[in-house]
C-alpha cells in the first residue's frame, strides 16, 4: 500500500526556492555594491592623491596665483588647531552633561537633555555654520579660528556626550553602591570610582567625534574660510583647513590645484579612517570589558 513519496521539489516548492535564491542573491549583491563603492572612492583618492604627495605639500603654502608648485602646509596646521580647539571646548562640556544625565538628573530631565542632544546632532552642519556666523562673526565683523572651532565643537558635542552617556549606563550600580556603602561621598564616587572605569569609552567617543569634525566643511564656510594663504597660529584670525581647501581647490580649473585637492583628500581620508578604525576597535574592546563578557 505504501506509495513512494517523491523527495524532489515539485513545481510550487521549486518556485519558492527559486524566489528565495534570487532574493538572497539580491541582498548579497547589495552588500557587495556598498563595499565596491567604498573601494572605488578610496581607490580614486589613492590613485590621484598619492602621486600628488610630495614634500612641498607639507612645507609650503599655496603658490602665488598662476605659479606652479606650492603646498598645503597652512591647511594642515590650521586643521589641527581648529580641531584641537574644538575638542578642548566639546570634551569637558560633553562629559559634564553626560555626568549630569547619568548621575544626577531625574528621568524626565534626562530625557529632555537626551532629546536636545539628539536634535542638536540632527541639525544640518551648514545651519550650525550659519548660526555661529550670526552669533560670533557678525558682531565681531570678521571670521576667526575661534568661531570655526566653536562651530566644530557644536558638531562634536552631541557625539562626545552621547558616547559618554552610553558607557556611564554600562557601569554597574553595584559599583556605585559599594562606594556609597564605604561612606564615600557622591562627588568622590563619580570622579574617583565611576569616571576611571569609563575613561576608555570617553576617549574612543572623543576620537570618533574628532574624526567627524576633521572632515567637516560646512561649519567652517561662514566662520573660517576667508583666510590668508599663510601659516597662522593665531585663532583670532580665520584659519585655513583641509576640508575648506579641498572644497575651494576642487572647483578650480587649475590642474595643479585639483591635484593638491586630491592630495589633501588623501591626507584627510587617511587621518579620518585611521581614527575611526582605532576608535571602533577600542570601543568594541571596552564594551566587552564593561559588559563583563
Amino acid at each position, binding site marked *: 500500500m505504501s506509495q513512494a513519496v517523491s523527495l524532489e521539489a515539485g513545481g510550487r516548492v521549486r518556485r*519558492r526556492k527559486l524566489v528565495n535564491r534570487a532574493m538572497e542573491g539580491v541582498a548579497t549583491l547589495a552588500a557587495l555594491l556598498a563595499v565596491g563603492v567604498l573601494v572605488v*572612492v578610496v581607490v580614486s583618492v589613492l590613485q590621484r592623491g598619492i602621486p600628488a604627495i610630495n614634500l612641498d605639500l607639507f612645507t609650503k603654502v599655496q603658490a602665488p596665483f598662476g605659479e606652479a608648485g606650492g603646498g598645503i602646509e597652512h591647511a594642515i596646521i590650521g586643521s589641527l588647531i581648529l580641531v584641537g580647539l574644538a575638542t578642548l571646548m566639546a570634551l569637558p*562640556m560633553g562629559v559634564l552633561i553626560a555626568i549630569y544625565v547619568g548621575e544626577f538628573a531625574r528621568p524626565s530631565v534626562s530625557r529632555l537633555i537626551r532629546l536636545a*542632544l539628539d536634535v542638536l546632532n540632527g541639525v544640518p552642519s*551648514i545651519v550650525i555654520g*550659519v548660526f555661529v556666523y550670526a552669533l560670533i562673526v557678525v558682531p565681531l565683523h570678521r571670521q576667526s579660528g575661534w568661531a570655526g572651532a566653536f562651530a566644530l565643537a557644536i558638531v562634536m558635542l552631541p557625539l562626545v556626550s552621547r558616547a559618554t552617556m552610553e558607557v556611564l549606563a554600562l557601569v554597574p550600580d553595584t559599583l556605585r553602591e559599594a562606594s556609597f556603602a564605604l561612606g564615600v561621598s557622591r562627588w568622590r564616587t563619580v570622579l574617583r570610582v565611576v569616571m576611571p572605569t569609563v575613561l576608555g569609552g570617553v576617549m574612543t567617543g572623543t576620537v570618533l567625534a574628532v574624526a567627524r569634525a576633521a572632515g567637516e566643511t*560646512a561649519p567652517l*564656510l561662514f566662520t573660517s574660510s576667508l583666510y590668508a594663504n599663510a601659516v597662522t597660529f593665531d585663532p583670532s584670525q580665520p584659519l585655513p583647513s583641509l576640508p575648506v581647501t579641498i572644497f575651494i581647490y*576642487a572647483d578650480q580649473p587649475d590642474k595643479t590645484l585639483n591635484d593638491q585637492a586630491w592630495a589633501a583628500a588623501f591626507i584627510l581620508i587617511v587621518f579620518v579612517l585611521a581614527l575611526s578604525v582605532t576608535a571602533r576597535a577600542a570601543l568594541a574592546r571596552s564594551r566587552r570589558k564593561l559588559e563583563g563578557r
Partner: protein
Amino acid sequence: MLLGVEASSAQQPTLAGSGRRLSDRLGDLALRALTGLAALGALVLIGLLVYKVVDGAWPAVDAFGLSFLTNQVWNPVTNQFGALAFIFGTVMTSLGALIVAAPVSIAIGLYLSELAPRSARGAIGTLVELLAAIPSVVLGLWGILVLGPFVVKTLGPFLHSILGWTPFFQGSVLVSSYLSAVIVLSIMITPIASSISRELFLQVPRDVKEGALGLGLTRWEMVRGVMLPFTRAGLVAALLLGMGRAIGEAIAVTQVIGNTPNITLNLFSPGDTLASRIAAQYAGAVSNLQVASLFYLAAILLVISLVTNVVAQWIVGRFAVPRHA
C-alpha cells in the same frame, strides 16, 4: 535607577554623628551645579541657535512673508528672493536618494544579519560603516572629478536608452546634475541606514525566526513574513534619519549639483537645494536682504530637519529601536 541610593545619600549615617563632612557636602553640591550648568548650557545652545537663525531671517520674513516659500525667483539684481526652487530641489534629491538607498540598505542589513558567513560579518559591517566616515567634501571632490564624467559618458546615455521615456532622463546629462547629487547622497545615507537595519534584524527573537523556518518557510518568506513586519517601525526611523542627513547635506551636493535653481523632474538637468544654495553663497552674498534670505533658507532647513529628527526619535523611543552611535 539609583532610587535607593538617592534616599540614603540625603541622610548618610556617620559614626561621629556630626553630619556629613563639609567638604563632601560642598563637593556634591559643586559637582551637581557644574554638571547641571553644562546640561542647561546644551538647552540654551539649542534655544540660541533657533533664535539666531530666525532673527537673521527676520528682514526677509518681513519683506516676503510666507510667499517666500512659493516664489521661485532668486534674483540678487532685483532683490527678489524665493525658496520654492530650493525646496523642490531638496525634496527631489533626498527622495531620490531614499528611493535608491532604502532597498539597498535593507538588503545590506539582511545580508549582514542573516546571510553573510560569520567570519565575514564583522569585516563587511566595518567596511560599510567606514563608508559613513568619508568626509562629505571628499565625496564631493570624487563626485565632480570622477562621478561627473562617468555619468556624462556612460551612466547618463545608458539610463536614457532604457528609461528615456520617463520624465526623469530627458535629453543629455550635464556634468553637474540632480543625478550626480542623488548618487552622492545615496552613498552618504546607505551606511547609516544599513547599519541600523542590521541592528534591528539582529533583534528579532530567534524562536520566532526558527518557528517560521520550522513551518517550512524559505528564508526569504521568513524575512518577508516575520522579520520585516517585526522591524517595520525601526526601519522607517532608520530611513528617516538617513533622509534627514540627505536633506541637510550642503557640501557634497553643492559640489555636484550645478547650483542652478531649477524646477524639473528631469534628473539630467542641474538644480539646487536649500543647503547647497547656502553653502554656495558663503563668500558671495552682498545685500542685506540676500543675507537675510539665506538665513530664511537656513530656517526652513532647520524646521525640516527638526521635524524629521523628532519624528524619527519618537519612533525610536516608542518602539525601542536600538541606538546607533
